[in-house]
């Protein structure tokens, strides 16, 4: 999704003004209430730790995630292996941080694809006339009528097991809610006088969309996308657990749980570690999304304020 290019100014009121606006933009981008919001702090903190672990963990870890060390298999947590080792003697902590890379990257890519597909379809539905709208929205209805994970399962099953296909499957099932939200927001501003004025001085469609229609959908879409990241991590892990996603020996959380399943009684750390990681990721993104909604959605904010007084 393309927003306004930062720094480009149509007013042309000189460089100082441009600086001023961009500085103001930065200031308003992170107003005090974003930083003061507890949900954002907690959720952001969790997600931050995850991202940090995903980036730094593999670098500092002395182990390789896939090299087998059969002499050290199924060791319980110790100083050398903080989270123990699995049935093939691989360090669980190392595999966990490598898995974080995969899960987060996959979540970002799948959510990004959902967002682009959904926003485009929503935008076209809202601006493209009644017939187009009707057809696209029925498509959305069909998509929403299917249970998402089952549909993803079918798609991933048909395409064959691989991480790329998981991303594809998850992007093809999740865009409908974006389409709905975007269509709703665009419809609500489409007839606003300022959009009509823009039409009256001959603004071409492209610019109309970019300047007047898209900015209004940024907030709700950002909230939805953040909440979605957690869901996608969970769904991807689920597909891998079922054997449709990451293939051994790739370190992936869902696959790790699948591997550890057989040693549930003797080595419970094998599934607790990735399980807790998945749970934390989902909780982290959900808290962050809720916090963002509090800050970005004015109506919702009013409610919370009222509750406080």
């Amino acid at each position, binding site marked *: 999704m393309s927003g306004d290019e930062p720094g480009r100014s149509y007013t042309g009121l000189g460089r100082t*003004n441009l600086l001023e606006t961009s500085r103001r933009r930065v200031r308003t981008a992170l107003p005090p209430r974003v930083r003061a919001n507890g949900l954002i702090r907690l959720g952001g903190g969790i997600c931050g730790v995850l991202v940090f672990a995903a980036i730094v963990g593999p670098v500092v870890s002395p182990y390789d995630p896939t090299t087998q060390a059969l002499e050290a298999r199924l060791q319980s947590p110790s100083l050398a292996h903080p989270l123990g080792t699995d049935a093939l003697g691989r360090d669980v902590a190392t595999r966990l941080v490598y898995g974080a890379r995969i899960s987060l990257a996959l979540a970002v890519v799948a959510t990004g694809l959902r967002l682009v597909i959904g926003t485009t379809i929503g935008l076209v539905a809202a601006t493209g006339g009644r017939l187009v709208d009707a057809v696209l929205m029925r498509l959305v209805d069909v998509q929403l009528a299917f249970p998402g994970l089952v549909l993803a399962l079918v798609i991933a099953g048909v395409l064959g097991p691989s991480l790329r296909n998981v991303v594809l499957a998850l992007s093809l099932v999740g865009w409908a809610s974006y389409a709905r939200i975007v269509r709703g927001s665009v419809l609500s501003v489409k007839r606003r006088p300022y959009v009509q004025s823009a039409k009256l001085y*001959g603004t071409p469609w492209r610019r109309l969309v970019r300047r007047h229609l898209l900015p209004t959908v940024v907030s709700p879409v950002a909230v939805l996308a953040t909440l979605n990241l957690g869901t996608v991590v969970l769904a991807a892990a689920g597909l891998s657990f079922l054997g449709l996603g990451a293939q051994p020996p790739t370190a992936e959380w869902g696959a790790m749980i699948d591997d550890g399943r057989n040693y549930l009684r003797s080595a419970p750390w094998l599934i607790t570690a990735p399980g807790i990681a998945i749970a934390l990721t989902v909780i982290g993104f959900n808290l962050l999304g809720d916090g963002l909604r509090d800050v970005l959605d004015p109506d919702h904010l009013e409610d919370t304020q009222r509750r406080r007084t």
Partner: protein
Amino acid sequence: MGPELVVDDLRVRFRTRSETVDAVDGASFTVEPGAIVGLVGESGSGKSVTARSIVRLESPGEIVDGSIKFDGRELTSADDRTLRRLRGRELAMVFQDPSTTLNPVYTVGEQIAEAIRIRENPGRQPFLAELAAGVSSRLRTRRRRSEVLELMETVGIPQADERIDAYPHQFSGGMCQRVALAMALARRPSLLIADEPTTALDTTTQAAILDRLARLNAERGMGILLISHDLGVVSELCDRVVVMYDGTVVEYGPAESVRSDPEHPYTKALLDCLPHRSEPRSRLPTADWPPADDRPSRSDEPPLQGTVLETDRTAVDGGTTATGERGSPRRDAETAAPGSDRRVDGPIVELEDVAASFRQSDALVDRLLGRDERVPAVNGVSLSLRAGETVGLVGESGCGKSTLVRLTAGLEETTAGEIRLRGERIGDADSRTDDQLADVGVVFQNPTTSLNPKRTVGQTIAEPLFEAGWDESRREDRIEEVLSLVDLPAAYAGRYPRQLSGGQCQRVAIARALALEPSVVLLDEPTAALDVSTQARILNLLADLQADLDLAYLFVSHDLAVVRHIADRVAVMYLGQFVEVGPTNRVLSAPTHPYTQTLLDAIPGNEAEECRQWDREALAGEPPSPTSPPDGCAFHPRCPVASEDCTRVEPPLEAVDGGRTRCLYAGEWRSDDSQRSAGDADATETQLITNSERTEPGVARTGRDGR
């Protein structure tokens, strides 16, 4: 006689994250039993907060000091039970926006019946009863049907028997407000608090509702606290008037004396800026009290605008100041927009037999099945507009006046007839050339929604220039120029709409419309959402701009006083057609169509009350549905002078007395009437003469004849 309400030194405070605001800062007044008291002030004066505090709905503000005594009981410290009983039986409130006051999921009958239940049993409902609310409210409505019907008739809802089961969305705004009133009356309150009950309504509906309130007050001895920003409304109805400014009461006294002899300069200023108290086309005084430096900073409107900049302007017009280049680019050949060399005599915009209709159903299935019924919105309208001329377009909501503007602007397509701009036929916005687009500017009603909240004032004004291909430095110059045209400091270019007041937003919208130097500006109720003093400033600004730039205005309004003030010619619309067109003076002082007279009668606080032709109840009806217009003359179901013929013959638009009128008895009904009361006609005539005498010499007034 009912109980008395005493408000004494009330202070209400709002705490926001950054500051605390004393919205009400020591207000004191009394509502005697059975009296009608008006509470007047501009937005932000604290009048609504005061009213809400009385029924203890002041949250999120808090009452920090003072007392509200009703019937001897202190309300500021009353507990929930007392409050519930009081709200259920004694104090009733009617809010401003009728469309959001009613619950959309219950029928109006159910909602009125619920109000009756609350009167009979103001306590908390048992939990189980609350669970069964949906079912029980239907049953209750059936049981109390006669009572509900009676209430609906009391507030003037015709065919109550059929409408009792209708939902709020099936009602017009005026009818919804009547239902809200019926709900308030169901509690048989001894005091009714009405918070701007007619602000969102048409003048005719407003008149009918105000009459209804007055009658209820007389019949039931019910006290009324009427909150309004319109001194006209208040002074017409009320016994006493409280004028609020910035949270304090600045004047409090009997309505007549406040109106005729205001003591406080602010009251005086408020009265002066009502357009119907000034000569047409004159400069309206603006409420600039207190003087600039004293004016509290929380009022956004820069206080300088009315006074200082006006003198500035005079100097500029004389061409004597350093800022004299202000209007010059128009004359400057190099920077001249494509518009300036196209000056031609004759009309700039012509509408000929224009018609437009809308699909009744959006459903795809209906369209595929060919059930494609269309509702006419505008029907056979012809009009021409010359440079420097203002044509006022008046009528009730739904009469098609906004559609006409949208057609002319190119936002809708005509289904018949043609619109010509400088002699060339034009279609909708997509098919117009850049020059044609630049030649027509549009200003919409609601200043806050007509600006993109995410773009600065400068970016907003720059957009049309950017589309027209101006380069950056020229854009920059032009922004400064148009900002000064609308009397805003150049520094405002960096501000966002949320940092501006309503009046300033409207100025920015006007600036954007003027950016490409149009020759026609379409103004769709540009002042309807503004306070009276802001309205006065905007009207002054529009008049100045017209004089400077030789603009043609098509000015839509439902407020005849505003139209009388600004327009050279008036077109009165009813059900998509013009019923009367002619010079403003003539049409608004001696109308030849009964509908125009109806509209005139409805102006609140009209000084010449004795000139009223008919009782307002006569016009209480609503316009018929455009889907099934009545046979014959469209106005005959509401017309006080309609005859047998009117129900059969559709009158043509005929030339009468300097204008054109669509009435079988054009003017005749009036002459009959004036024979009956010769005094009226005399008064009207004198008014007409003084008006035309006082018209400034030298002001070119074209197009006085009908077309």
